[in-house]
């Protein structure tokens, strides 16, 4: 247990100590929020869909969490390069404790970034709707963070170097984000896209978070919660498995 704690703490320290990284990774969500949010706001309202900033904000928060969580897993590659991974791999603690500490630390960092983006969204005009689901927002943020920290861990464990990095960004993270319902409503999409949306784990996270914050659902709270819980548990297990197979 102590190993989980100290490795988790290590990641929090690294996060807090690099303001450049905190600010840097806010750039993309803010850009999306402003460009899409204000750019499409009028059109969205004219189509009778309500306030686009409020619709978009949960999606942008999810995006920040998604990116930071996947990167936290991919950090394994950096630790491999800069040697620290070896130090943990020869320590007399189980691989499970090491990888749990890492994923937990990564998830908390990703969630912290999500909360910062949430505050920025409030500044941009995002209004939370009073609903009984509101406390679930933090649950969904944490689950999204853990789920994608797990996915990042799989890639971080399998890849030997950063060569595959653009591949992950362009063929995993970006599609996951765009086809998650983060920026548009699932209703009225072509059937193929709607199907892709249903397969995407992030869709349920986004839907759950949006439901908790502004009480608008596509799949429904129960479905969202069930799918995200099961997938998070699964991805934590898969991530741990791949991590435990690392050899130097």
């Amino acid at each position, binding site marked *: 247990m102590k190993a989980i704690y*100290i490795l988790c703490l290590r990641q929090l320290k690294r996060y807090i100590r690099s303001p450049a990284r905190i600010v840097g990774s806010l750039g993309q969500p803010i850009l999306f929020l402003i460009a899409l949010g204000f750019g499409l706001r009028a059109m969205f309202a004219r189509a009778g869909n309500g306030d686009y900033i409020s619709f978009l904000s949960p999606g942008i928060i999810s995006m920040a969490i998604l990116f930071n969580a996947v990167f936290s897993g991919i950090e394994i590659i950096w630790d491999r390069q800069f*040697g620290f991974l070896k130090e943990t791999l020869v*320590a007399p603690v189980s691989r499970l404790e090491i990888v749990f500490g890492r994923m937990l630390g990564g998830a908390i960092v990703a969630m912290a970034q999500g909360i910062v983006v949430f505050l920025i969204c409030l500044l941009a005009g995002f209004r939370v709707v009073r609903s009984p689901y509101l406390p679930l927002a933090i649950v969904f943020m944490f689950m999204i963070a853990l789920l994608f920290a797990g996915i990042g861990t799989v890639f971080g464990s399998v890849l030997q*170097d950063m060569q595959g990095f653009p591949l992950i960004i362009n063929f995993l993270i970006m599609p996951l984000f765009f086809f998650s319902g983060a920026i548009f409503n699932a209703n009225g999409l072509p059937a193929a896209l709607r199907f892709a949306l249903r397969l995407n784990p992030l869709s349920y996270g986004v839907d759950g978070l949006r439901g908790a914050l502004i009480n608008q659902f596509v799949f429904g709270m129960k479905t969202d919660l069930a799918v995200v819980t099961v997938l998070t548990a699964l991805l934590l297990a898969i991530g741990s498995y791949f991590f435990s197979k690392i050899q*130097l």
Partner: protein
Amino acid sequence: MGDMIVVQDLVKNYGDFCAVNHVSFTVPEGKIFGFLGPNGAGKTTTIKMLTTVLDPTSGWIRVNGHDPTHEQKQVRRSFGIVFQDPSLDDELTAQENMDLHGILYGVPRAERLKRIDILIDFVGLGDRKKDFVKTYSGGMKRRLEVARALLHNPRILFLDEPTIGLDPQTRNHIWSYIQQLCKEEGVTVFFTTHYMDEADRVANDVAVIDHGKIVAQGAPAELKEKTKSANLEDAFIALTGHAIREEEANATDRMRMMGRAWRGGGRR
């Protein structure tokens, strides 16, 4: 006193390439064993297999009586290691790196804090212990890694080229401490080095490995006698030839270079 490290017929293949080829040796408790060989001879690969981070293709290993492939935890508890490449977290301070290590190895808090202070002072980093490791020179990082390897009172020390980048003063300081540990506490040391004078001076026994095979084994004096050489360096060259070895840069080395360029950009 028993044998702390026993290796029989150890083999590691990477595809067609045989990195370690039927290697056998034993290291008795409390002895210093030098593992010598040119670049790419298989030294680090052997250490990786002894320290549980790489599974052998075949062969039999016992470290402190345990099998590194199946009894990993017992083996890991037995040793401390200084790796060939750096293995510190640059974004943490020296003290935090030590503390993290102590917690991973389950050293109780009071003892941990005490030993961290003693060891950091011992390697001459007392007044820098609250500084981030990224501000350290190569030699300082090396010294910190030596201190860290000793923190949990290991029975065996693996030192993979531990004295690279250290000045003669520090090198002597560290070796005399390690020799004292061997004598007084029966700690066993397995080390690799390219400094033959160092091996000659501190090792009770050495093995010379080349192209994955052990080509000679014995006390430094025996090797010198066998090859009729004045010193261990001449004996080493007599045994392994004059050809300069090429070591292919692995993925890690390439990444390190990329990483430097990237970090130079100011991120992290």
